[in-house]
């Protein structure tokens, strides 16, 4: 009888420990980031510069919905692939990876970093999208579908980027490696995201974009589960 009572208690204590650990990693990253705002500023400035380049390059004439959707997603993907690589590299450069490894479990580190990167991607998406809508004078036909597509895309983008940036951080010649690894893997996000965004811009309903949304959900789910399983091998020596 006593054993039966203890198992759920033990499980809930372990879960609480895990959540506390993951939250602590997230808060640490957030605090380091708030100290210098390096990652957020790089990300946002890159996205803004790219958007201005796009606006200058295409000129004032109106664009088709497909081209607009494609431009937005290209800017988002490139900005994420360039700006999100820092958090793991910083652990190795600062020599804090070993301490982190001693004090927390791999899954906590992954969850904390994932949350932090997701925050950065959400910030990036919000800023880049509003500037994009403003600069190109785009009106969105179905705002709900537009927001939903961006949110699902951001999830898939974050899970793939977090794992791959952890891989690149282990490379002695990192440099521009992350975009090379990331962009081919993110092709499904790009294709489905552009498809659904185009339909949202044209004012079509949720039902019309069903295939694309399901693909985005599937991609986010598949990459997230694979990343959770595989991260242990990247983090622990």
């Amino acid at each position, binding site marked *: 009888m006593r054993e039966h009572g203890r198992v759920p208690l033990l499980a809930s204590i372990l879960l609480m420990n895990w959540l506390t650990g993951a939250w602590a990693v997230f808060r640490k990253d957030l605090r380091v980031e708030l100290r210098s705002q390096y990652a957020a500023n790089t990300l946002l400035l890159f996205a803004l510069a790219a958007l201005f380049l796009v606006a200058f390059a295409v000129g004032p004439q109106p664009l088709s919905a497909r081209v607009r959707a494609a431009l937005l997603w290209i800017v988002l993907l490139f900005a994420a692939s360039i700006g999100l690589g820092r958090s793991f590299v910083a652990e190795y450069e600062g020599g804090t990876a070993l301490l982190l490894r001693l004090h927390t479990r791999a899954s906590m580190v992954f969850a904390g970093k994932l949350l932090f990167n997701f925050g950065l991607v959400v910030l990036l998406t919000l800023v880049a999208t509003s500037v994009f809508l403003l600069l190109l004078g785009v009106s969105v036909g179905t705002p709900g579908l537009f927001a939903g597509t961006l949110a699902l895309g951001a999830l898939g983008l974050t899970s*793939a980027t977090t*794992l*791959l940036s952890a*891989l*690149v951080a*282990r*490379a*002695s*010649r*990192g440099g521009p*490696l992350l975009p*090379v*690894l990331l*962009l*081919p*893997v993110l*092709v*499904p996000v790009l*294709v*489905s995201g552009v*498809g659904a965004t185009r339909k949202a811009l044209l004012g079509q309903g949720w039902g019309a974009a069903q*295939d*694309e949304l399901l*693909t985005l959900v*599937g*991609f986010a789910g*598949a*990459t997230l589960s*694979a*990343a959770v399983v*595989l991260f242990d*091998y*990247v983090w622990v020596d």
Partner: protein
Amino acid sequence: MPSQVQTQGLVSRRLYRVVRGTVVVVLTGILIAGLLGKIPQLDILEQSARNLYFHVPMWFALMAATIVSAYHSAQHLRHGDRIRDLRAREAARLGLIFGGLGIVTGMVWARFTWYEGTGVWWNFDPKQSMAAVLLLIYGGYFVLRDAIDAPRTRGRIAAVYNLFAVVTMPFLLYILPRQMPSLHPGGEGSPAFSQTDLAPAMRWVFYPSVLAFLGLCWLLYTQRVRLAWLREVLRQKALGNAHGDGDAAH
């Protein structure tokens, strides 16, 4: 005394010889029968239908190489054997080679069927583009390997990337191409090699060709694995001599 490096355990010599003989004979036969044999005369396709004997088996070989590479990557993560990493690497390299050949043969075929009279070589048909992305992923795998110096770390990190990429491949190969209009055979309203689509005479060349290309892929794979293993052992020996300790080739 120059010591012999053994690669006996990696592949059965007898099996290798049997497969080598069979592949040489069968592939020669397929080259002759594939280029000179009778095929049904169909509009648009005409003689280009012979591409089936070469293009499709190349993709079978790519699929097999992908699966073998992912399997050995998973085994490498589980047990950490060096040989598993070498096997995963060589299988990925063969996937790249057969995939590249498959893309080229497909491109030439599409030029004279889909885009006949337009002079277009590449028009971003979903299946073609996704296949190209697949090759980019394997290209990334080798770039990642080259970016890491320590062999143990390199093996593990490359295995993780390989498995992660394999998880996203179904989206590239099966989900996305089915959501977009494609001219590629096997899609909606476009014949491929189901029961009614393939002439009986062509089956007698096509099926052996698939087996022969898989055999060729295996031959190249085992040879490359043995070569990679020899290099590895010799490198370890050289390192051992340089450091002056005898337990190099463990």
